[in-house]
């Protein structure tokens, strides 16, 4: 198996186990590349990539841009604020205008679920989904899987708890698909109001007690409360949320095993996770960021290589 089964990366749901393993294996090679004195390879020197961010992003945008530049691609950046989107241009029109400037690949983040799939059907370029609403964020799931594999040696048979705002999280959904395909067990934990009603249908365990979840898992992936997506109140106060679902050092120390702590960022210190936990040895949050560049290089490389 030496090529991806898909032309676009729209979500983890449409990837096979072999695709994911190929991406993770290729990421290993790129991790070696980005630790060289000269961190750049010429593979994509004739490719132009447009980064279209219709929604705010720090890590993902920088990470994609860096990955593209490390592969020698030409990069153009676009963010919705300050663009003609504000004047009422449609998504297809915006993208087709950008493609008319001879762009080969599009990396897109959009506030609406399905935006990347929609684009893949209507425009002639390779599309990479960098997050679409509360649907999927495939490269985050891939880099999370890569980081777990790097830390624990394998993913198969490991127990991963995803804790926090599951309802509004694209990271949660992509992680569930990815980890299950690689043979891990997944549990989601959070207040009942922030857990989608039919999530059990995906074959994940549901737990509302944080301590029980932590005692069960090998890895805890902490998610941020996405206040900006919450149209109504899902819990009485942030303070109460922190008391019930915030991970702190004394809670972690009271559990008899060492759990790996992950966070996709941005962290709300003192809400879902305290500073002493985020900066502890158990946390691999900054490793996740480093691995993100390698994994995104692998995705861009493998997709660009597809005819």
């Amino acid at each position, binding site marked *: 198996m030496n090529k991806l089964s898909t032309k676009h990366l729209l979500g983890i749901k449409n990837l096979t186990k072999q695709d994911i393993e190929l991406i993770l294996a*290729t990421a290993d090679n790129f991790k070696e590349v980005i630790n060289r004195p000269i961190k*750049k390879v010429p*593979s994509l020197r004739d490719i132009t990539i447009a980064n279209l961010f219709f929604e705010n992003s720090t890590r993902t945008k920088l990470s994609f841009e860096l990955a593209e530049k490390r592969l020698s691609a030409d990069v153009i950046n676009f963010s919705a604020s300050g663009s003609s989107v504000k004047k009422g241009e449609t998504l297809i029109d915006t993208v087709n205008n950008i493609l008319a400037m001879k762009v080969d690949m599009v990396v897109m983040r959009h506030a609406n679920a399905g935006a990347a799939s929609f684009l893949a059907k209507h425009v002639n370029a390779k599309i990479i989904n960098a997050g679409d609403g509360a649907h999927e964020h495939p490269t985050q799931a891939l880099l999370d899987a890569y980081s777990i594999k790097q830390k624990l040696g394998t993913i198969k048979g490991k127990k991963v708890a995803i804790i926090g705002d599951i309802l509004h999280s694209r990271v949660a959904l992509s992680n569930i698909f990815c980890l299950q395909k690689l043979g891990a067990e997944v549990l989601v934990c959070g207040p009942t109001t922030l857990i989608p009603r039919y999530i059990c249908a995906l074959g994940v365990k549901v737990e509302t007690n944080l301590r029980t979840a932590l005692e069960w898992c090998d890895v805890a992936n902490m998610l941020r409360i996405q206040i900006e997506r919450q149209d109504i109140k899902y819990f009485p106060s942030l303070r109460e949320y922190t008391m019930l679902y915030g991970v702190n050092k004394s809670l972690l120390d009271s559990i008899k095993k060492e759990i790996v702590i992950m966070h996709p960022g941005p962290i709300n210190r003192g809400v879902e996770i305290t500073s002493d936990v985020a900066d502890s040895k158990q946390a691999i949050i900054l490793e996740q960021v480093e691995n993100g560049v390698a994994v995104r290089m692998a995705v861009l490389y493998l997709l*660009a*290589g597809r005819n």
Partner: protein
Amino acid sequence: MNQRVILSSKQLDLTITRLCYQLIETHNDFAKSALIGLQPRGIYLAKRIEQKLNTILKDKKINCGSLDITFYRDDFRKKELIPNSTTIDFIIEDKNVILIDDVLYTGRTIRAGLDAMLAFGRPQDVELLVLIDRRLSRNVPIQAKYVGKTIDSIASEKVKVEWREIDKEDKVWIMKND
């Protein structure tokens, strides 16, 4: 498929021994030299040469690494190219580097290898060692300094070097489709 052996296991061993002594003539004790095998199949030849030099030079430490050139190839997108690992755990700055590959054919792999190597520093000089030189098929102006065996072959023929580490035994074949 018409195929015949052009180097047997015994001949291959003799050839490698000869190449080692040629290398020693230029590089003495290898203090400022480094062997770099090209992935995927040049690494076996590099390892073999390292082992033999170790025997001849009585366990002198020799720098030996492997270099993957996938990201530097000029035929990306003509076919899917899956990378191998690169291991160069020494500094190549100011070293005399010997690039090692099994077969020299169009020369494009070596061209990519030169590019890939420069990401690790600026060597003092670079030489090329190959086991088989298919001298009539070059696309770029690249020649080897050390050659195991030179053969005249045409494009429809294929040369395959087998190593006991991954194949059954050491052997070099030339194959031709009927």
